[in-house]
Each structure stands twice: as structure tokens, then as C-alpha cells.
């Protein structure tokens, strides 16, 4: 049974003096301060290797910072142990990984509902929500197919649906449009922004596409955070 971390103030993302370096590497990341209110969207922009994915991993508890604080709502991520972090992610975070991180032997529906299955809440309502998301993302034709039978773009959209289906308070998407053509990419970004704003969730999205930046409330350029 997952331990549920209760949030008394699920209202935003706060980063204070965050520092991180990989052991034996000259790479240094420093985020002096970062705030994102509920319902707002933040774009992380910067060249490859600038640490965008590393920052997302730090914000979601997948990496532990060397110093500083990361607060998601009232939960201070950097002080939670691994199991507490996992339980928090399962409950409150929706993650779109750069490599999609789908299970090839499961169908599209099973992949989308995976977080719900482990939360023990995959009921009819959730299935309806999954169906709606699949329709919005134009993958509803493939719901019973195995993800190994899908194209890269279709797999990416399945990963987006999985991140949103449990209505998380925090959405982190690592280049969710990388494998998509511009029109489909725009559909995905619109869906992420709309979902976050409607539900009052925080959205942090990594992107290379400068055309998308005006759609976000804030933009952080990674060059400004490196080796500071």
C-alpha cells in the first residue's frame, strides 16, 4: 500500500537556493529561487546538456539536491525519503519522460492507467477520463494496441495521457513534443496548458521550441543557472 503524503497547501512550486553537481563532473546547477503559482506554466529552455532534465529530476525527487529546498505545495521534496517521494509522485505528480518510459508489453489503456492501478483507483470514472484524453490526443483508435506497435509520436502522446490521467497537482513534461510534427505538438502543449490552468495545477515543461515560449507564464533559460 502506498503511503499518501497529505498536502495542506497544494498551491505551488517553490525552489530556494537549489544546488546540484554530479560527482566527479564539472557540471554545476544553481537555482537561486523559483516560484510557480498553482495554475501557472513554466518553460525550461536551453541547449542540450544544459541540465533541463536534471532540474526536472531534482524538482520531482528523482534526484536529491546537494543543497537548497524544493517545495511542492506544502511537501518539502528534498527532505522526504525515497518511499515518501515515490508515494508523493504517485499521488500528486504527472511526469512525461523524454524517452516516454512506457511498458511495451502493456496496451495503451493499461499504460495510461498504470499510476491509477497502483493507487488502487482505476474505476469507471478514470477509464472515462483516459478515453477523453486519448480522444484529445488522437490516440483513441489504439487504446487496445500494445505500445510496441505504435510510432514514436503516438507513444509520446500515450506518455502525456498517462501523466494527466490521475489529475496531478504538478505536471512535469520533458520535451513532450520532440517526436511530434508541429500541429500535433501544438495539440499536446495546448492540452497540457489547458489541463493545468483548468485544474489549478503547476506545469513545468522542457522545450527546445522558441515558438512555444510565449504560451507560458514564465520561462527559465538554463544557461543562466549553470555553474553560477
Amino acid at each position: 500500500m502506498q503511503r499518501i503524503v497529505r498536502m495542506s497547501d497544494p498551491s505551488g512550486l517553490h525552489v530556494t537556493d537549489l544546488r546540484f553537481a554530479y560527482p566527479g563532473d564539472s557540471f554545476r546547477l544553481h537555482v537561486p529561487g523559483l516560484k510557480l503559482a498553482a495554475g501557472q506554466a513554466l518553460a525550461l529552455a536551453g541547449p542540450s546538456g544544459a541540465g533541463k532534465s536534471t532540474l526536472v529530476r531534482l524538482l520531482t525527487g528523482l534526484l536529491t539536491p546537494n543543497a537548497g529546498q524544493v517545495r511542492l505545495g506544502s511537501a518539502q521534496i528534498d527532505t522526504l525519503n525515497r518511499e515518501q517521494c515515490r508515494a508523493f509522485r504517485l499521488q500528486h505528480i504527472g511526469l512525461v519522460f523524454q524517452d516516454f518510459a512506457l511498458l511495451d508489453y502493456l496496451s495503451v489503456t493499461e499504460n495510461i492507467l498504470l499510476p491509477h492501478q497502483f493507487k488502487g483507483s482505476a474505476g469507471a470514472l478514470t477509464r472515462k477520463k483516459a478515453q477523453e484524453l486519448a480522444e484529445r490526443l488522437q490516440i483513441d483508435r489504439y487504446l487496445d494496441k500494445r505500445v510496441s506497435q505504435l510510432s514514436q509520436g503516438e507513444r509520446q502522446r500515450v506518455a502525456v495521457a498517462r501523466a494527466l490521467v490521475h489529475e496531478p497537482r504538478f505536471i512535469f513534461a520533458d520535451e513532450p513534443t520532440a517526436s511530434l510534427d508541429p500541429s500535433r505538438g501544438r495539440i499536446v502543449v495546448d492540452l497540457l496548458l489547458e489541463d493545468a490552468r483548468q485544474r489549478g495545477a503547476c506545469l513545468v515543461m522542457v522545450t527546445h521550441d522558441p515558438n512555444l515560449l510565449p504560451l507560458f507564464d514564465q520561462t527559465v533559460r538554463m544557461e543562466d543557472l549553470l555553474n553560477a
Partner: protein
Amino acid sequence: MSAAFQLAARYVLRHRLQSVLLAGALGLVFALPFCLRVLIDHAQRELRARAAATPQIIGARGSALDLMMTALYFKRENLTPLPFGTLAELRQNPSAAAIPLHVRFQAQQAPIVGTELDYFAFRGLRLAAGKQITRLGDCVVGANLAKQRGLQPGGHVFSTPELAFDMAGVYPLKMRVNGVLAPNGTPDDDAVFVDLKTSWLIEGRSHGHDDLKKDESVVLKQEEHNIVGNAAVRMFNEVTDANIASFHFHGDIAAYPVSAVIVLPQDAKAEALLAGQFARSKDRQLIRPRDEMESLLAQLVRLEGFAASALLLTATAALLVTALVFALSFRLRQREFQTLEDVGVSRRSLLTVKVLEIVFVGFAAVVLGLLLLMLASFAAPHLLRWAL
């Protein structure tokens, strides 16, 4: 159904070929010692029952085991034959009955057993169809043999020559099937039974041919009390009502061969006296099949011990290999488990997924093992018959 159960079941089902192969290998390795036990138990039961039903056997001195296998299972073990006169000698003893067996020839792999009608009463063999042996050249066949070859009363069976290219050898005899025996689950089900004289006829000690007195063209020379035929004399390879009178034996019948004699003593005293009498004989031996079978089975049990040790080692190796297969599989799937961790699945749930996958394969292995065991139980009688 828990998410871990569902995920583990999905993985095993989606990789069903690998899972079934692994489960099959495991099931086979763990079922083999039990299958061996089932087969040996069945063999011991059957061998003991056949031996216990046969009090004593007399044969020429030589291998006691060969004598027993010839008399009980009709194996052609190249025994030195006993002279038929031995039977007459035994029959002078009023406290024991004697049944001769002559097992030398075959009818296409089925043993031809020359005996007397007492044998059928002794073994409790009943006719399922037709009649008993009524004259020279008749036979009755065992239930399995009749079924396999579609034999019925009125049909025919040919004896098989010992040497196919020996032109001077014994010709095949066409025997009339007079009856079919009811099945009794013993080697009797697979044999062709003939009268002792018919077995000598197959051996060439008796023959039937054209009447030389009626046709001078086939006479080579005429002596005072003897007519010698030439090569044109027609030899009969089938006994019929028309030619049966022409069949005759040459030489002293008391010297004709029998493979073994089953002895049925009236009581323990008679049994002991017979054993003592033959213990002193230089050219004949009397064996108690029960004792011979026990010493054979003791060897078998020793062999089973070796086989069980080897199988135990194999099972241990298989267990280690299976553990390695799972360990490697989980290692190869590290990215998948990392994904689940990243999504937020607890370590405990991940461990449950892994354990359940092993349990599913283990369960399939047990089911396959039980199927194998059932198969072994079903096949045991057939395997024993084939082995003997």
C-alpha cells in the same frame, strides 16, 4: 485484483513462449524423480505378481534369470532346452503338476508359446471369442495381439523363420486362429499359443507331405520298409483337415526340446522336496521365480538410487539456472522497473511483481509436472510391456 498481480500476469502472458519453456523445463526436472518412482513401483508390482503366481520353474542348468524371463515373459534367451522326457519323469511325482513351455519361434515379433491346455487353466486365461486349440496347427492369440493385428477366429498367423535367407531352414507355418483370449494385463496378452506339438512342427521335427505310395513320380528309391521321396515331394506348410493325417514325427519324442517346465507343487513339503531333488542335478535346475525376481528388483532399487541422485543433482542445477534466468531477466528489465519507480510505484509493489512472476512460472511448472506424472502413470503398463 491488485496492480502487481495484474502487471505480473500481463508480463507472463505476453511472454508466454518463454514462460512456458521455462515452466516446462522446471516441471520436467522436478517431475522426473516422481515419474521414475511411479514407473518403478508399477514395474515392481507387475513383476512380483507374475513371479508370485508361478511357484517353481525347471530348466536346463544355466542362467536362472534367463530361465525365469523365458518362462514368465516368453523372452527367447537362447536357453539350452530340456528333453521332453523330463516332463514324463516329473509327472511320476503325484504331489506336483507340470506344464511344459517351448518358446523359440515368433510370429512377427509376437512369441509363439508351445504348451498344453493346463497352462490356460493355471493362468486363468479365458477365451473372449472362438474355441480352444483342437488340433495340430491351431493357435489361440492374446487380446492385445488380436487387437493390434485385427485377428479373429478363422484367421491365420504365420510363424517367422529364424533365418530369412536360409533356404534349407524351416518354412513358415500357416496357423489357424481358433480363439482369442480375454485380456488379463500380462505378457499372455501379446503371445500366440499353440500346442507343444505344433511348436515342434514349426521347428521342423514333424512334417506333412504328399503320400509317396500314391504317386510314383515323386519316389526316389524304395527300400524294404522305407520309401525315399525326391525333390518333387510337396511339403505342407499348413495343417488342414485334408492333410492332417500326413503329418508325422521322426525320432524319439522324449528327446524333443522344451524351454522350461512350470511346476505346481501341491504343498510346501512337495515344493521343498522338489527343490532338494533338483539342487543335486548337474544338468537341470529348479528356480523359485519369487526369489529370482526379488534379487532382480534389489538391483533395480540400487539403480534407482543412482538415478535419483543424478536427478537430484540435475534438479539442483535446474533450480540454480532458473534463479539465474530470473536474475538476468530482472536485470535486463531494469529500465522497466526504473520507470515504475519513477512513476511512483513502491519498492514493495515492485518486489511483489517480481515474486508473482516467479510464482506464476512455478505454478505452471507444477501443473506441467503433474500432467507428466499422470502421463507416466498412464504409460507405465505400456512402457513395461515394451521394455519386456
